[in-house]
């Protein structure tokens, strides 16, 4: 059976996870290890008047109590946002100073003020409790619109009115003109609810400073260990890059929240140097809720115009995005180049304009969370399209179809150039799979049981594999967004693939091995994937934005090309034929139609024995590749959700969920389906359950799993997932990416279904039973159902 591209092979990495043999950061114990406990602000906004460490320093087992002044004195740099955005007036964004340990002010509940290093977690925590911080409590602001109001508490001196930037994309005047001349105009307000990412493995770090070697090692829960090393070195001056090894071992989910370099990793490294001990910190869930970067939190108004034939003439969107108390690593890119650029959706729209104001508030920093900007864009576009269809009295599927982009490449007015797709095929597949035509019959049947049944759809598009590097650089990115790979063939023909991508649930140890199996016909068991260690892999940009397939695998393909070329040259020399005659398949290197055949292992062995190589060829069989994509990729699809709402309680049951996606080439359908399932689960979570809520004092009300409504198994349905694929023309494997689609396409489909069921379009996320019940009361549909 083939184990190559498209094969539904089981995962190589599973054995260790199902037997308890996974090795996550907190599982690792270093000799001479101490534990860090952070002293965190209980206030959303306060001036630090003093820190008294004397009591804590005397407590049992305490090695050190360290604060921000010491950190600053040692030259540790401020935490930065790595994507520079300019406001429309040309001024650069107003980035406020963020020290890993606060020195003068705290700006959100959970802001780290000091750290205790002790011989046990219990002793560290007890001493952290004993650190007396004298706070002068200041007024705070938590809502993004309130932050911009006159007289609002000010967070950073360089960000007047808490404004970070006021940015725009598209032609505002042309869009206004198009909409003012439109035959039909629909306007809507949106909130995109703030979410806690909640990877089940909490963040963790163990730092070891080796004084004899003047060298640091950091184990950390990272999606991108190389980027962590670069930033820790170049910007935070914790250690020079060649003296710092960063290892991200097994990582228990990321969803964006483990991209960033947080204060805790910086402090653990620094504290290890200060104490000459290994320093370990593992977040508990309460800390995770307070300090892991949150996602979403947009407030928008949008206006869309249609001509008399129901073709869209213009879309105008005005959004305020809450970035929290400090600018996290990619926080500025999420509401700009990952949001406004996707407002064309799957539609041919001539005029689009988006204005984006980002603001500081006294809340946890907000950054990319699964989908990152694209779910927010999709929610605006797909909710307003559904609403427009209802107002125009036309079938929502047909309104979408009428406006679909059908010719590629398609240049939108908001930067993106869609390279390939067949939006109608995904819509048709989803309509068929959901028995869209039979819905009214199901609605009638449900009504007899006293249930309000509704159907809603979402035709999403996203952009993955952000690139090319020069283009993102011109848009303000502080890094290149390429990927690297190295393919090392051993003398016996087994293969190691070293990749800069990082797997934290995505199954790279299997799918990346499938690429080598496809190329040479070797079993995937003979291919080992090496990732997550800066000492082993030279460099890499890591895994986020669904980039591992489209970018990471393309780099592997490039290295495989070079290995294949060299192996063919060696084989041609051994077989005394021209290298163009050689093919490699089923682990054989041969000239088709002849008896000239070598085992793959024979060619590999000869590469290393070097007894019989072509004149001038270097021994060995190892090649590397850096791959920089020519464009983003554009996964797209249609999701259709069907719900039944209980009018008595407002409870929503998702009774059917259909997804038809175009991800381009699929390496392993089992894994891709799993990615879609997980994304839909998070999307349903956003639509029905989840919201990170701060009260007016800036206290996080949803700070545990008893308060934050994580989707449980009985909240979610089973999903029907299928694919209608077109190949991405811009990368060698034709891959588009699949990691975020579910989280992007799902929320508007769910809300469109519920609003369809209850006959009231005024419903915000999360659509909790109380909100749905209230909307039912407001609509009067309950009486109609009875």
């Amino acid at each position, binding site marked *: 059976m083939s184990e190559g591209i498209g094969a539904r092979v089981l995962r190589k990495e599973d054995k260790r*996870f199902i037997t*308890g043999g996974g090795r996550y950061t907190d599982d690792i114990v270093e000799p001479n290890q101490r534990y860090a406990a952070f002293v965190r602000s209980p206030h959303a906004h306060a001036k630090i008047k003093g820190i008294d460490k004397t009591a804590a320093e005397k407590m049992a087992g305490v090695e050190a109590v360290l604060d921000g002044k010491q950190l600053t004195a040692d030259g540790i740099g401020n935490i930065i946002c790595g994507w520079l955005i300019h406001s429309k007036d040309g001024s650069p964004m107003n980035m406020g100073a963020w020290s890993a340990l606060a020195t003068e002010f705290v700006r959100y509940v959970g802001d780290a003020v000091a750290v205790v290093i002790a011989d046990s977690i219990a002793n560290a925590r007890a001493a952290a409790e004993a650190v007396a911080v004298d706070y002068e409590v200041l007024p705070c602001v938590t809502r993004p619109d309130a932050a911009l109001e006159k007289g609002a508490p000010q967070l950073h001196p360089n960000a007047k009115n808490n404004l970070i930037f006021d940015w725009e994309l598209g032609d505002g005047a042309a869009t206004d003109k198009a909409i003012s001349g439109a035959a039909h105009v629909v306007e809507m307000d949106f909130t995109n609810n703030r979410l806690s990412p909640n990877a089940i493995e909490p963040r963790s770090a163990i730092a070891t400073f080796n004084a004899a070697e003047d060298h640091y090692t950091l184990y950390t829960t990272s999606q991108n260990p190389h980027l962590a090393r670069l930033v820790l070195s170049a910007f935070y001056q914790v250690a020079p890059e060649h003296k710092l090894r960063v290892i991200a071992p097994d990582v*228990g989910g990321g969803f964006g929240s483990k991209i960033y370099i947080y204060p805790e990793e910086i402090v653990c490294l620094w504290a290890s140097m200060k104490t000459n001990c290994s320093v370990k910190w593992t977040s508990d869930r309460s800390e995770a809720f307070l300090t892991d970067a949150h996602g979403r939190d947009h407030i928008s108004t949008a206006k869309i115009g249609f001509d008399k034939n129901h073709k869209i003439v213009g879309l105008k969107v005005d959004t305020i995005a809450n970035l929290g108390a400090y600018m996290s690593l990619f926080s500025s890119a999420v509401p700009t180049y990952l949001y406004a650029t996707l407002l064309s959706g799957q539609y041919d729209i001539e005029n689009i304009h988006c204005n984006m104001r980002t603001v500081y508030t006294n809340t946890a920093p907000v950054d990319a969370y699964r989908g990152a900007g694209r779910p927010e864009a999709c929610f605006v576009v797909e909710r307003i399209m559904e609403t427009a269809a209802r107002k125009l009295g036309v079938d929502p599927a047909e309104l979408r179809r009428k406006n679909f982009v059908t010719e590629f490449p398609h240049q939108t007015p908001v930067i993106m150039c869609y390279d390939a797709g067949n939006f109608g095929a995904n819509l048709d597949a989803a309509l068929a799979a959901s028995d869209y035509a039979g819905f009214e019959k199901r609605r009638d049947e449900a009504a007899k049981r006293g249930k309000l049944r509704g159907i809603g759809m979402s035709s999403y598009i996203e952009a993955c594999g952000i690139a090319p590097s020069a283009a993102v650089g011109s848009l303000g990115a502080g890094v290149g967004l390429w990927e690297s790979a190295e393919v090392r063939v051993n003398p016996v023909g087994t293969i190691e693939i070293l990749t800069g991508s990082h797997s934290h649930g995505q199954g790279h140890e299997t799918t990346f091995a499938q690429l080598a199996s496809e190329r040479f016909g070797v079993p995937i068991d003979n291919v080992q994937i090496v990732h997550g260690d800066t000492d082993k892999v030279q460099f890499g940009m890591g895994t986020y934005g669904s980039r591992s397939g489209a970018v990471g695998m393309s780099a592997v393909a490039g290295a495989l090309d070079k290995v294949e070329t060299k192996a063919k040259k060696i084989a041609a020399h051994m077989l005394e034929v021209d290298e163009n005659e050689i093919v490699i398949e089923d682990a054989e290197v041969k000239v088709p139609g002849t008896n000239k055949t070598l085992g793959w292992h024979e060619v590999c062995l000869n590469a290393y024995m070097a007894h019989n190589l072509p004149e001038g060829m270097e021994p060995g069989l190892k090649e590397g590749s850096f791959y920089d994509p020519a464009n983003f990729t554009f996964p797209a699809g249609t999701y259709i959700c069907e719900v039944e709402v209980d009018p008595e309680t407002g409870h929503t049951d998702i009774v059917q969920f259909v997804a038809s996606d175009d991800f381009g080439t699929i390496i392993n359908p089992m894994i891709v389906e*799993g990615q879609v399932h*997980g994304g839909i689960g998070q999307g349903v979570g956003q639509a029905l359950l989840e919201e990170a809520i701060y009260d007016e004092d800036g206290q996080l009300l949803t700070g545990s799993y008893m308060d934050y409504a994580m989707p*449980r198994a009985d909240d979610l349905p089973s999903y029907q997932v299928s694919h209608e694929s077109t190949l991405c023309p811009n990368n060698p494997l034709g891959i588009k990416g699949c990691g975020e689609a579910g989280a992007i396409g799902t929320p508007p489909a769910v809300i469109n279904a519920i609003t369809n069921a209850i006959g009231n379009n005024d419903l915000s996320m999360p659509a909790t039973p109380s909100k749905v019940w209230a909307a039912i009361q407001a609509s009067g549909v309950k009486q109609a159902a009875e």
Partner: protein
Amino acid sequence: MTSISMSVNGKAVSGDVEDRTLLVQFIREDLRLTGTHVGCDTSQCGACVVHVDGKAVKSCTMLAVQASGSEVTTIEGLANGGDLHPLQTAFKENHGLQCGFCTPGMIMSAADMIARYKASGSKLDEKAIREELEGNICRCTGYHNIVRSIEDAAAKMS
């Protein structure tokens, strides 16, 4: 400090622990069995589920001293030598795990679930599985393939 002893995965173990030591801390830190995980601090996520005297228990919610004298099974002790437990096989074959962090707790809860339903003769259908999993949180899979895995194992174990 209190001296405790128990059987863990069929092996007699003992240790001196503080009274406040949780069973999960004893398992992870003293015994170095790190397959049992901690994903929350409110007894909600279920990543720490082990079996104590044959019943699924959240080991973050039991003191180590309370488990003294008990027979404890962790994910490391579920396979029979080299033969995987049917649930382990089912999770692999049905892609019931992604990052793997919640998986040990899921599998230990599912083993208890299947045994209870088998003993009572009740039907363990999708609805029942989803309700039974209320105390185990997964962020990766959307639960779809976890449910398939448990259905598959339950059928094979019946």
